């Protein structure tokens, strides 16, 4: 018996993703100006003795201005829920007293990923949570990162 056959394909630019779905019931926040985003980012690394590290800033992308949140962006609360927080916002702030990925938040709160990103964008804009960008695949991969992952897996 012989297996069915396929033909390999060549690398090519990925087609554009479909337009984001409107996420109910949250309203999309206004896209902030690029200056506002810069200020937020600069302020985040300015604390006394703090190591400047790349934090997410909300980038207005024209179509809704959603922060480029990844499934594995790590979210952490900066403070307790303020009295003005909506129940959903308060739930997020309580969940991320310890760092939690957007995917985990979406799972625990049973919110679709896109709804979760809208809710988180509000919280990032309000400076109620911190977001740590994931490490993504590079054209020239970081060998020490790969080695760290291998060591971590070896301990399993």
């Amino acid at each position, binding site marked *: *018996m*012989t*297996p*069915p*056959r*396929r*033909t*390999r*394909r060549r*690398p090519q630019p*990925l087609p554009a993703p479909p337009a984001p*779905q409107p996420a109910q019931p949250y309203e999309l926040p206004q896209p902030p100006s690029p200056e506002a985003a810069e200020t937020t980012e600069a302020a985040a690394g300015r604390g006394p003795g703090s190591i400047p*590290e790349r934090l997410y800033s909300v980038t207005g992308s024209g179509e809704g201005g959603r922060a*480029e*949140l*990844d*499934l*594995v962006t*790590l979210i952490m*609360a900066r403070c*307790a829920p303020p009295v003005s927080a909506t129940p959903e916002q308060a*739930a997020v*702030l*309580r*969940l991320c*007293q*310890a*760092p*939690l*990925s957007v*995917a*985990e938040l*979406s*799972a*625990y709160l*049973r919110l*679709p*990923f*896109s709804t979760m*990103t809208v809710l988180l964008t509000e919280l990032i804009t309000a400076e109620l949570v911190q977001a*740590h*960008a*994931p*490490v*993504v*695949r590079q054209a*020239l*991969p*970081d*060998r020490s990162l*790969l*080695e*760290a*992952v*291998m*060591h*971590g*897996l*070896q301990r*399993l």
Partner: protein
Amino acid sequence: MDFNGSDTLPGPRTEDHLPHTAQAAVKIVIVGGFGVGKTTMVGSVSEIRPLTTEETMTQAGIGVDDNYGSDSKTATTVAMDFGRISITEKLVLYLFGTPGQERFWFLWNGLFEGALGAVVLVDTRRLEVSFDVMGRLEEGGVPFVVAVNTFPDAPRYPVEELRTALDLGPEIPIIECDVRRRASSKDVLMTLMRFLHSIAMSRALT
């Protein structure tokens, strides 16, 4: 910091909390057809009980709809299982078990673009369901290994016969596994990592 009322909410168990030092995450994607063992593999290596994230899409989004833009779109929910492995006190690895149909992939921002690499899980009884996935990974330049989940009643082919059938270059690892076993799933992930490392080494030389 003191939050009230946290015991009434769904959330991670105390022992599942990441340390406050966790500041970066990486992801690996496990792709394959329905029933090939994606959820089983995620569960066998994850340090947390596997979780599910969902995304809602309209029929228009899956390409079967003629009235895109009208009010009569129906919503479809697509689910994806995932698990987590802490690598260091700063770094966390997430594993996503993703439906094989590429039309779902765009639902999750950067799922493949940002992934370190992918595991294509195949079942030799239905090899062709993974053809499209492999093609899409090749087009997107996402490095992958092929893991053959050995179901008892599935045909067994020599690796080189599979390589020819799948039209894979000699550098791409093909490995047999039983993802119900943690050691086997770990072996698959290590095979992917060693492959990614070899790519990094060869690119550093050019």
